[in-house]
């Protein structure tokens, strides 16, 4: 067991149990700020925990951050751990973050696909999807970023259960997705929704299910470019900014398309750094540099959300 968060190695990849245990330590050390909420269970009955950073109030305007919905993208979950610790330790020290947390809450889902994450540690390091069983198919799992009710079943998602981008039998069929949907809807006051993926150095906004510009495209583009400028200032990492459809490809059923259509204007997705040498097997010594540069962009977006309410 980690005795305290200072002894935790943020520059290493960890198993699910270790991260869950670390969450308890974080909560214990910052009990005035951080709580751990169980938002439901995964397909294989693992708890799904959200870290809630709040200084009080009831259903304050909130920011959502999820990491690692695609389980093999390990630097995403590791970045989530580092970021949660950063938020907890910088509160009260960093004036801007402190002012943000005095008016808004932050919710972080560090292991958005716990079954898949465990599977990458125990059976198949390259596993991307959930672990649900599909009736009539020998293949398992749904791409949880094609399963949201946003152009569900459209272009860029597969109807084949054996595909890595299988959209699932119906929108929100995956309990991991449904748990997030339920929380966001029941809360009703989320102002930003940020999904963190890896890799290829992109900061994206909706849509993926259509190549039409969203109504807030100029604003989202401007916020994204400013965020990326800050990210790049640390190590020179180059990012591209744009809509999912225009800078990658059409991809229906994605989380940030759903959040945007639900009314959460500030919806973004990150693809974290790519050294061009390792892909999903980014060495652990890259975790802290990746998380540090990502933090600058995340902070910029969160400050913008705080300063430009709607």
């Amino acid at each position, binding site marked *: 067991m980690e005795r305290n968060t200072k002894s935790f*190695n943020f520059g*290493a*990849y*960890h198993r699910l149990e*270790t991260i869950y245990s670390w969450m308890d330590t974080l909560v214990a050390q910052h009990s005035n700020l951080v709580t751990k909420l169980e938002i439901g269970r995964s397909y294989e009955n693992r708890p799904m925990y959200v870290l809630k950073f709040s200084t009080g109030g009831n259903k304050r305007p909130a920011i959502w951050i999820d990491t690692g919905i695609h389980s093999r993208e390990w630097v995403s979950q590791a970045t989530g751990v580092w970021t949660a610790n950063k938020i907890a330790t910088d509160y009260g020290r960093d004036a801007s973050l402190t002012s943000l947390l005095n008016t808004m809450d932050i919710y972080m889902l560090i292991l958005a696909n716990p079954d898949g994450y465990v599977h990458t540690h*125990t*059976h*198949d*390091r*390259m596993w991307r999807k959930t672990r649900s069983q599909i009736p009539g198919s020998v293949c398992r799992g749904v791409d949880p970023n094609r399963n949201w009710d946003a152009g569900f079943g459209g272009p860029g998602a597969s109807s084949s259960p054996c595909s*890595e981008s299988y959209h699932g039998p119906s929108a929100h069929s995956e309990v991991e997705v449904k748990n997030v949907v339920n929380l966001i809807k029941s809360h009703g006051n989320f102002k930003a929704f940020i999904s963190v993926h890896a890799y*290829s150095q992109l900061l994206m906004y909706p849509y993926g299910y259509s190549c039409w510009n969203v109504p807030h495209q100029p604003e989202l583009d401007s916020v994204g470019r400013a965020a990326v400028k800050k990210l790049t200032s640390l190590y020179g990492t180059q990012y*591209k900014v744009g809509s999912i459809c225009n800078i*990658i*490809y059409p991809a229906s059923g994605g989380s940030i398309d759903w959040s945007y259509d639900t009314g959460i204007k500030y919806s973004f997705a990150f693809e974290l750094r790519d050294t*061009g*040498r*390792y*892909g*999903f*097997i980014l*060495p*652990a010594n890259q975790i802290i540099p990746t998380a540090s540069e990502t933090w600058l962009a995340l902070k910029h977006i969160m400050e913008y959300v705080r300063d430009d309410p709607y």
Partner: protein
Amino acid sequence: DRIFTGDQVIRIDVQSKEQVQLLRALETEEELELDFWLHPVSTERPVDIRVPRSSLSSVKGYLHDHNIPFTVMIDDLQELLNQERAEMEVNQM
């Protein structure tokens, strides 16, 4: 454990729309069991493909035949995974 011994990850810096189309055609060849880490989209983004050892000669032949240059990003995926696991075990201790 699923083992990836001999699997390679190759990177293609796509140079033309025609190459994008050829790589998309490759994507549909299910029997090759290719895992596209980065999909063929445009000339502005590279394409990364994890190629199982059993499909290496077919895929490399296809790329050579169509004059599509590539580099090997990961020579043996399992070697890298072994290193990653060893590092995790040390950290765990």
